[in-house]
């Protein structure tokens, strides 16, 4: 379970997150919505301990992680599988080496075993054919898929964290990524997806958190979201009218 208790965070003098409090169970499918620069990605970084809050507590499975060192945070980070926006693949390594990165780092698997495991993971995300490709040869959708495969190789996560997984993708690729997100959470594993695309969020999530100026202004299900009278949410939802999917 993830608990944010009155968390504040600033970049320099600019306050990004203000007194943010919420809790998320590890089997929940949550979408964090909001405009650019509203602190959506910052929330994922705070959960992973990549940045420390100015004040407040972040509790993961009953443990406050705010005072933990890098070494102590490793155990916390292994509970999550974080997929950064645009994949964040290592440029100097090909797809196979990217996926095998943690296997080489932390296991004593032989080359054959690594090869088999990498193939299996790439098959799961549907890009087995791209095993020898370099990151610059991959499309946006393939980038995200390889990144998901790499994070699966790193650990058996309790929960997935996706940072704008469909941004910059065409509708077909975005749909494929959404299907993959749902597929990976089939066995009860929850996820947090950070996005500004309501269409995609409604496809995969069951709970929605909306951020405005670093504050939580909405927390509820799709029904409540679609009927919210908050002006900013209505602007977001207007995207559905154009897409013709208001009755999701």
């Amino acid at each position: 379970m993830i608990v944010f208790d009155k968390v504040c965070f600033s970049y320099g003098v600019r306050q990004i997150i203000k007194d943010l409090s919420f809790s998320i169970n590890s089997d929940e499918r949550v979408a964090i919505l909001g405009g650019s620069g509203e602190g959506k990605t910052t929330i994922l970084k705070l959960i992973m301990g990549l940045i420390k809050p100015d004040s407040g507590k972040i509790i993961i499975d009953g443990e406050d992680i705010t005072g933990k060192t890098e070494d102590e945070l490793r155990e916390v980070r292994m509970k999550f599988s974080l997929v950064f926006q645009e994949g964040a693949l290592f440029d100097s390594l090909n797809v196979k080496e990217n996926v095998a990165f943690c296997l080489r780092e932390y296991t004593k698997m032989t080359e054959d075993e690594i090869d088999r495991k990498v193939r299996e993971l790439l098959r799961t995300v549907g890009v087995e054919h791209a095993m020898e490709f370099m990151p610059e040869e991959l499309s946006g959708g393939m980038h995200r898929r390889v990144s998901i495969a790499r994070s699966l190789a790193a650990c058996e996560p309790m929960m997935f964290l996706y940072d704008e997984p469909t941004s910059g993708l065409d509708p077909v690729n975005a749909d494929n990524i959404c299907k993959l997100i749902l597929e990976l959470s089939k066995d009860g594993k929850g996820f947090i997806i950070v996005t500004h695309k309501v269409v995609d969020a409604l496809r995969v999530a069951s709970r929605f958190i909306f951020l405005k100026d670093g504050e939580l202004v909405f927390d509820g299900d799709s029904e409540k979201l679609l009927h919210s009278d908050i002006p900013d949410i209505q602007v977001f939802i207007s995207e559905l009218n154009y897409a013709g999917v208001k009755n999701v």
Partner: protein
Amino acid sequence: MGQWSAAVMIRLKELISDLQDFYLLSFRGVLNIFKRPFYLKDTIEQMDYAGAGSFFIIFIVSLFVGMALSLQLSAELSRLGMKVYTGKVVGISVIRELGPVVAALVFTGRVGAGMASELGLMVLGHQVDTLRVFGVDPVKKLVTPRIVSSIIMLPALTIIGDAVSLFGGYYIAVFVSNQSGALYWSSIREELIFENVFSGAIKPFVFGYLIACICCYTGLSTKGGATGLRQSTTKAVVMSIIMIIVSDFVLTRILLYVLGFSV
């Protein structure tokens, strides 16, 4: 006035914090050499990039520095009737001073700038965060191999650069200034004493360490997209050049004192 002093205080705090982070990174970068895991493959890759990749440019620059130095000295010394000392002065200048500094400046331009921009791009592309997510220490994985490669390859390149500069000086002394080749080499051999060689040999190790630490630190501190990347790369190169020149002076002063030269 109040706003101005507040701004100065903020800037001062940032500067102290930056310095503290830089010292920590420099210290941890070296300490990690003795800790597992050893990223041997990464270190060899960096050595190849820094060493083999810089060989040609060091060769060209050193050759022309040696030739220009020999040309200047031949002209001036022949006016004073002391042309025979060309080899001696070229030898001392190149081995003790010019060789290490020129190699370090070229190394900064090619390897240091590359380190800063590569690490900066990794920061902006969340690759450094990804390493942390996977429980890999970015200092150990990214900084330590670069420090090791710089400490090993810059001295090697300096030796090559010194030799090439001396050959450049020889070409000018013999074929342009019509001096005796044997005399040129014998006067250089006379200068290859412990004090001179040690003085020139210790500097590249210090310069290599400084360049790697400064460039890795500025690269890893990159913020703010393409503009931030440009700023951090420029800062890395400028700071490295300044530190090379300043530390060269300090080292020269210390070495002259320690090795018993009278000034």
